[in-house]
């Protein structure tokens, strides 16, 4: 393995981080440069249910979606846009479907670029199809099919490659529903990281071969699951302080993609991306208030603070009063970007960044740890032990808990339940070994009785 571990922060100071700028911008698609001084909308969509009935219907659906978005962009005068196609399963298990759709989308985008000069690029995110009916099969036959899908979209029009990989998912699901902090750390910090490293070495090779961008991963399947189960302020499904731990640990996990060759932009639903940007300097996509079409959000403004692409997560393609859903959300996102770009041009970017951040900073502990100053602190705790995938994950979890604990003595209000849950998490984390091998062995044994857990998925 040729992994490039991060042992120091890309940014010297969290104050240097801002939206629209990254240390390592990415050029892609038609004249687009991400993180190079401006933000762009990244529009994300899902086909209507009936479109999945045949390849022809699916291709036609994506043609309409692509045309609709680009038409709206030029009608309202937006200079750039990214389209992200998250594969429905049929597109990945039949790699030629994904290829044809990428080709059709890119052809339409090229026509708009040729006619109007709109800067644009296409991200394709194949579905992680490595999950069987009984258990995950991360390195079996379906892995070969997944890589074939990447090959096909990369050679047929996709400019950027991403995935929401599933490593650790079965252990995580079981752990999060039992308040098992150790299991959360093991599933995301160890199993997730091992899988991300494994898969991104191959995706990066494919990207290089086809001269496209290995963009990045997201811990949607775990940290976002925790965030969604945690829900709103009044939901009582999961302590938000436990979701904080899952999020913090997801940062070193998703960082592994960049250690294995990805260069950004990180994928939109990776709420851990601000931490990753602080460590690596890669541009990032983020979602927040523009993704309420897909889920509620406790950091709708804060998520904009350091974004380079601004996304809506996903919306089903359908009609709205103001056009089709992708046009409406694309326009909303682009107006946000227009505001951010104006702030950059006028020299007020950091003021806007601070307003975005502080408007949600105290809304929830999950938002609090991702405020860019706190995200930076978590980043520092990760690079301190950057070569040890266990210690850096444990560090991130402890630092996030410390940040919330300190915050609760200031403006961050916590309920008694959240305080108790936080204290319990801190106690659990401090009781853990400092030895990676010991931790892994203990947890491999602990979860070996779980029917759907297969150590061989992670090289054990």
């Amino acid at each position, binding site marked *: 393995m040729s992994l490039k571990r991060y042992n120091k922060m890309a940014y010297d100071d969290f*104050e240097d981080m801002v939206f629209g700028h990254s240390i390592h911008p990415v050029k892609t698609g038609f004249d687009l440069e991400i993180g190079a001084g401006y933000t762009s909308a990244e529009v994300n969509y*899902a*086909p*209507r*249910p*009936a*479109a*999945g*009935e045949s390849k022809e219907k699916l291709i036609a659906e994506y043609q309409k979606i692509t045309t609709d978005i680009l038409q709206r962009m030029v009608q309202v005068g937006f200079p750039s846009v990214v389209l992200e196609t998250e594969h*429905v*399963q*049929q597109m990945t298990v039949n790699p030629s479907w994904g290829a044809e759709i990428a080709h059709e989308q890119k052809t339409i985008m090229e026509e708009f670029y040729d006619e109007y000069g709109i800067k644009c690029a296409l991200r394709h995110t194949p579905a992680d199809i490595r*999950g*069987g*009916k*009984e258990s995950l099969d991360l390195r079996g036959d379906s892995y070969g099919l997944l890589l074939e899908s990447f090959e096909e979209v990369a050679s047929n029009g996709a400019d950027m490659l991403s995935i929401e990989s599933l490593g650790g998912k079965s252990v995580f*699901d079981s752990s*999060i*529903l*039992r*308040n098992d902090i150790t299991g959360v750390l093991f599933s995301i910090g160890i199993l997730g990281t091992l899988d991300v490293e494994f898969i991104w070495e191959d995706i990066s090779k494919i990207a290089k071969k086809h001269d496209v961008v290995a963009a990045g991963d997201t811990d949607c399947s775990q940290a976002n*699951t925790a965030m969604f*189960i945690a829900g709103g*302020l*009044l939901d*009582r*499904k*999961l*302590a938000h302080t436990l979701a904080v731990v899952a999020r913090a640990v997801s940062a070193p996990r998703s960082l592994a993609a960049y250690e294995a060759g990805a260069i950004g932009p990180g994928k939109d639903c990776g709420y851990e991306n601000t931490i990753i940007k602080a460590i690596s300097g890669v541009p990032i996509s983020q979602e927040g208030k523009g993704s309420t079409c897909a889920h509620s959000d406790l950091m709708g403004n804060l998520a904009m603070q350091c974004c380079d692409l601004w996304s809506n997560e996903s919306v*089903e393609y359908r009609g709205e009063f103001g056009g089709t859903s992708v046009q409406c959300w694309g326009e909303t996102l682009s107006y946000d970007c227009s505001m951010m770009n104006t702030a950059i041009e006028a020299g007020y970017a950091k*003021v806007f960044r*601070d*307003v975005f*951040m*502080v*408007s*949600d*900073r*105290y*809304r929830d502990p999950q938002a609090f740890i991702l405020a860019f*100053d706190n995200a930076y602190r978590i980043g520092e705790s990760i690079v301190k032990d950057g070569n040890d995938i266990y210690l850096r994950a444990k560090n991130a979890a402890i630092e996030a808990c410390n940040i919330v604990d300190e915050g609760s003595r200031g*403006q961050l*209000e*916590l*309920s*008694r*339940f*959240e305080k108790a849950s936080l204290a319990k998490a801190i106690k659990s984390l401090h009781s853990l070994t400092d030895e990676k091998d010991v931790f892994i062995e203990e947890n491999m044994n602990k979860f070996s009785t779980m029917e759907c857990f297969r150590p061989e998925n992670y090289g054990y």
Partner: protein
Amino acid sequence: MIDINPQRILVRYNVKVEKEMTPEEVAEKLFPVEENIREVAKAVFEGDEDEVVESIQNAINNGLDPLNLINNALMVGMEIVSTLYDDGVLYLPDVIISAQAMIEGIEYCKERSGQEHEYKGKIVSYVVEGDIHDIGKKIVTVLLRAKGYEVVDLGKDVCVEEVIAAVKREKPIMLTGTSLMTTTMVGFKDVNSRLLESDINVPVVCGGGAVTQDFVSQYELGLYCEEASDVPKIADAIINGLNIGQLRKEFHKH
């Protein structure tokens, strides 16, 4: 970096409305008085599987009937947990941990009595074909078991054929299906059609990421469910004789 006093920007309603008493204090008032029963119920509340079995052993040694302990001690403890969850005092993992302890206890009681326990009703649960996201189904399954239902869990990525065969075989009072994606949730349509073809009118409770009330309402047997905690209430309503129309009126929130 600027900072503000957030008081005029947002309200942490969870802090504002938090109950004064701790879950343990509330539960203490609800535990049964009889010592043997109380110990079993407390062990379920605490979610301690070993303690559950030990307290059942003690109760049996003191002359209590193992099968009676299921309804009169284990389910009583679980009912306290469910009540506290419904009242916003406990969190979902508390319910799951307690339910697991209760299930262990039921198995032990059945083993000791050598007889079968009579459940409130049988329910078949599954995740639609093409979809492997099953955490929602797992939550629903546990909540149903916690309320005394027998759940036949078909797992994830389940084809229509398998669902129909299970319904014919198990004769459940309802079916629960979850789906995360727009393109997989069409599986509900096929299940609905196949059940109707076989003259089976069992309600199909549908939920999950991309599923909407409008979508589910298109299908004769479909009942949309947004919150996992509503599923046991739907099961109770079915046992109480509500038909699909009445169920929709009661549980369709939009």
